[in-house]
């Protein structure tokens, strides 16, 4: 008897649940849609519950991409003749968002520049520009898609991030790679606030993820992040941190800044920028 009852009741419950779920879902969409259409969009955008829904969609999009798209897929590489001239820089473009001594250091060929690689790694290492130039390099002509919508094509040269990471030896706990930058948000926004960015190991170990010290056959220009920038070819431009100073390997999602994994992310952009 008891068994029978438990068999029947859940059936009814499920049906009722589905019906009420469908009804409330439709109701929510109707009111949401209607509110949005009649000027409530801005209020909805600011509502914490709606923001949570938006952020859940972001996580869903990432999961769908990671599940459906082949993780080793290479971004298209182009011919030399496809390179954009000029290539529009984005983010920090000049000395105004860099430390005061930066132009002088650039003029000196970044002789005193170092890239620190730290975190749960076997051999924390400090690389000079010369050290990085001695590593096997990859050259790729790829399309840079800005979140704003435009695209430029450039030729980038530098060691694969995977080469550097295998050199320092990742601890099995390592999950994210955080990039620290020399450029700052303009001071009037939030005081001194150095740019940072992060990616997971799927992108960090991807063949086209490189630390570029050359652009179009010349040392990386200041506008494009001299002396070293990240290239993550299957994501949007804002993920490709410029003016690199340090790489931190972490075992958890980075909690620096506002805790959203990057300077742009802290301003509301998606952490997964594959869309």
């Amino acid at each position: 008897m008891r068994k029978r009852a438990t068999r029947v009741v859940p059936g009814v419950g499920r049906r009722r649940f589905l019906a009420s779920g469908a009804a409330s879902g439709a109701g929510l969409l109707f009111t949401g849609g209607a509110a949005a259409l009649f000027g409530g969009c801005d209020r909805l955008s600011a509502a914490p519950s709606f923001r949570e829904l938006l952020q859940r969609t972001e996580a869903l999009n990432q999961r769908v991409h990671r599940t459906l798209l082949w993780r080793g897929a290479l971004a298209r590489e182009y011919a030399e003749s496809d390179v954009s001239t000029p290539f529009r820089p984005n983010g920090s473009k000049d000395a105004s968002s860099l430390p005061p001594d930066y132009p002088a250091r650039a003029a000196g060929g970044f002789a005193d520049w170092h890239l620190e690689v730290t975190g749960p790694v076997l051999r924390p290492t400090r690389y000079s520009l010369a050290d990085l130039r001695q590593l096997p390099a990859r050259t790729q002509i790829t399309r840079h898609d800005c979140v704003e919508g435009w695209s430029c094509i450039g030729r980038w040269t530098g060691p694969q991030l995977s080469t550097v990471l295998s050199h320092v030896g990742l601890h099995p706990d390592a999950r994210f790679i955080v990039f620290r930058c020399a450029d700052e948000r303009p001071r009037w926004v939030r005081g001194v606030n150095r740019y940072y960015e992060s990616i997971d190991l799927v992108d960090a170990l991807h063949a086209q993820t490189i630390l570029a010290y050359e652009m179009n056959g010349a040392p990386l220009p200041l506008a494009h992040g001299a002396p070293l920038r990240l290239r993550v070819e299957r994501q949007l431009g804002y993920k490709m941190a410029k003016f690199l100073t340090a790489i931190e390997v972490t075992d958890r999602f980075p909690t620096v800044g506002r805790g959203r994994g990057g300077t742009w992310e802290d301003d509301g952009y998606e952490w997964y920028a594959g869309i």
Partner: protein
Amino acid sequence: MRATHVLNAIALALLLMSGLQIFNAHPALYWGERSDFERPILSISNSFTAEGRPVGITTIFGVAFQTSGVLGWSRLNGRPGPRAFPGWITIPSIQDLATGRLWHFLVAWLFALTGVVYLGYSLAGGHFGRDLLPRSGEWRHVGRVLATPLSHQTVEGSSPEAPRYNIVQKLAYLGLTLILAPLTVMTGLALSPAIGAAAPWLIAMFGGRQSARTLHFALTWLLLLFVIVHVAMVVLTGILGGGLINGVRSMITGWYAVPGNAASDVSRPVAPATAGRAIGELEP
């Protein structure tokens, strides 16, 4: 079916408005793989006259138009300022690319999923074959249908029993559901750098990422044009024929009353425009 109809209309409006927010972040369109900033197909910008008066400028194929007040320079909350599409048609109204993108990618799921449900249901349920597929003898009616004034078009069409789509309607609906809407989704997907890497053919079939972006923009307006004409037709045929409320009600509920049916005003199976069952058959 009804639900997908209404949900898609809402989704389309939200996608248009959040899409224009995204467009406003870089209000220029190009052809090919990359952006040739010197030669956009279309661009919206602002400038100042010799007297220092701000003007909105829209340039299409190198020809500039003054579009102050709407495109390039418009008021938002009473304050004039530079913005490509005006704040009243973007989500959010202020310039906020990050939030506009989140809206767009949320509602895109709604649009795509209702589209899949509609297509699946229509194919499985025979809606396409029964109601939309043109029959061999119908093609020669295209000219006649187009030439017939709306006031003489009858809702019943070929059958006195129930309304049927005419050949022009069939072609319009097939074009929308099988070509226009899928192409809009595909050009949108082609803009994702991750999808572009995994499926390079998607970008290639549209002639490059910037071409895909331009087509995505153009297809949006074709979809909007369809919706405007579609609603206008329902309203007009409603006024001229079976009654406005009848037509609009059928769009939302699926119940269309066939005029002149003595037994009941609303007891005939509904066809196409209105597909579904007659009100008389409504379950309790």
